[in-house]
């Protein structure tokens, strides 16, 4: 097995045991980047020179028995909204053409301190305001969308051009591309991972989280990222945790909620079948399936938009007036239209969020997690703008992709997307596991036990 093919857990173990040098791993990943980037365009910037230098230092340290932390010598991609000192945070936008970050974001600093090495900054839909990431191609079919907005991060992990990556998620932007590219994505509980130094789309809804090849890999990264930072006003206090899923091989006693409404409506038949098979798989592992009714579904999109639209417009207030022509057409129109939303609509969304959070907490008393599709369809062709459902309704692709992931952003609950198979065209399908606030360990354990029943996941066959 070549180093770029290793999962994060396997690579970290091999480096710790002295079987693999950080130089070998970083060189292998960078060669893979060089070979595949012409087909994928997952990276906005590749920091090869800096990565090779860091790898040599990491190799010297490892040889001397000094390991910085659990991610020592592991190459990563960071979404191009996440500040790394001295590197541009271009946010997928001409608005940021001359940008240079002055300091590390909280997450970049934590990852650096744990030994991870930056391979590059990955493409995002402009300022994370979209579900496509048009610059980047799907890792399984380059004629199809990567999904977004963390499209570059998902594609890099799927193709082996990063051993892991970080994304951000305001309505599904980690989980959507994770599902569409066959990798694991976690949107943690709101406030668990600090956002200081990460370009905002919507303060009420933004989250930072990992994209990895396996669920076990998620636990390693989350343990490094989680924890209070006073520079993010939403940051939660709490002790450090070990998120590793442990050796348990079944899910006896776990109560898995299966939605009777919302999550299986207007969902592609192959996606539904794959997710229901995976849910049956959880039952076969000892879980008890419990039907649940998702509350207030009529108000999910309204609450999500009512929060996101005016907050995004507020963030861009100055540049939208100073240099509106630098924005892409779709993002500019949304930002301008956001100026027309009355404060009353924003407050209603905030109050609706209070109600929805309360109702979800009530629902989650009866189950330990909820299992559902991550997105209602697999990756569409790059020029497709709408999905026509069998009932005749027509839905914009971006609205369809965000529909099932947005509830976790509105309520703040954690959501883990895991691959559960492919459709007949060979495109990946994702299932999300939603838990109680700070219930990441439950999701990771269930996802890991499920994953172990499946054949080892291979990298996307890019070319």
């Amino acid at each position, binding site marked *: 097995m070549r180093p770029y093919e290793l999962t994060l857990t396997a690579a970290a173990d091999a480096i710790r045991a002295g079987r693999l040098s950080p130089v070998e791993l970083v060189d292998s990943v960078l060669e893979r980047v060089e070979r595949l980037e012409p087909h994928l365009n997952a990276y906005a910037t590749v920091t090869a020179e800096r990565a090779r230098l860091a790898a040599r230092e990491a190799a010297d340290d490892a040889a001397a028995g000094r390991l910085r932390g659990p991610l020592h010598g592991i190459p990563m991609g960071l979404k191009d909204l996440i500040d790394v000192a001295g590197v541009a945070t271009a946010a997928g936008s001409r608005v940021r053409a001359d940008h240079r970050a002055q300091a590390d974001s909280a997450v970049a600093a934590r990852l650096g301190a744990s030994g991870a090495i930056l391979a590059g900054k990955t493409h995002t839909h402009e300022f994370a305001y979209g579900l496509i990431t048009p610059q980047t191609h799907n890792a399984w079919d380059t004629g199809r969308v990567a999904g977004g907005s963390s499209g570059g991060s998902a594609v890099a992990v799927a193709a082996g051009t990063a051993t892991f990556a970080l994304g951000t998620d305001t309505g599904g932007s980690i989980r959507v591309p994770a599902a569409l590219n066959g990798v694991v994505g976690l949107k943690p509980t709101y406030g668990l991972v600090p956002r200081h130094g990460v370009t905002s789309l919507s303060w009420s809804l933004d989250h930072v989280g990992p994209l990895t090849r396996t669920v076990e890999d998620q636990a390693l990264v989350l343990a490094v990222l989680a924890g209070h930072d*006073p520079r993010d006003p939403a940051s939660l206090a709490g002790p450090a945790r070990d998120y590793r899923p442990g050796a348990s091989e079944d899910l006896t006693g776990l109560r898995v909620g299966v939605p009777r409404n919302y999550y299986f409506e207007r969902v592609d038949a192959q996606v539904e079948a794959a997710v229901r098979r995976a849910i049956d798989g959880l039952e076969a592992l000892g879980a008890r399936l419990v039907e649940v009714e998702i509350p207030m579904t009529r*108000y999910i999109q*309204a609450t999500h938009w009512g929060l996101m639209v005016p907050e995004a417009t507020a963030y861009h207030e100055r540049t939208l007036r100073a240099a509106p022509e630098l924005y892409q057409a779709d993002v500019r129109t949304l930002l*301008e*239209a956001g*100026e027309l*939303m009355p404060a009353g*609509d924003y407050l*209603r969304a905030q109050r609706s969020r*209070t109600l929805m959070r309360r109702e979800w907490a009530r629902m989650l008393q009866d189950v330990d997690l909820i299992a559902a599709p991550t997105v209602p369809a697999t990756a569409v062709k790059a020029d497709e703008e709408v999905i026509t459902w069998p009932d005749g309704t027509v839905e914009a692709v971006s609205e369809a992709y965000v529909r099932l992931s947005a509830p976790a952003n509105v309520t703040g609950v954690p959501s883990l997307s895991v691959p559960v198979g492919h459709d007949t065209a060979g495109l990946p399908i994702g299932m999300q596991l939603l838990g109680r606030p700070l219930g990441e360990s439950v999701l990771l354990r269930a996802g890991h036990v499920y994953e172990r029943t499946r054949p080892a996941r291979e990298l996307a066959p890019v070319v």
Partner: protein
Amino acid sequence: MSTAGLTPEEAARWADRAGLPLPPDRRTAVAAAAQHIHSVVAVLRELDFGDTPPASVYRAGEEEHDAAV
């Protein structure tokens, strides 16, 4: 905004009141997007919120970081 369609001229006037001059070639697209957004968020008016406070939080003092989710 009424539930009737928003005209490009109305969009320009609303944007101007918000401090954003909208050139003529932007007005039709912005009016359509604003109308769509309005049609989505308007359903929140059906809810009876009673005494429900907004979810946004403010804490006086820098030492309180135990925000509930």
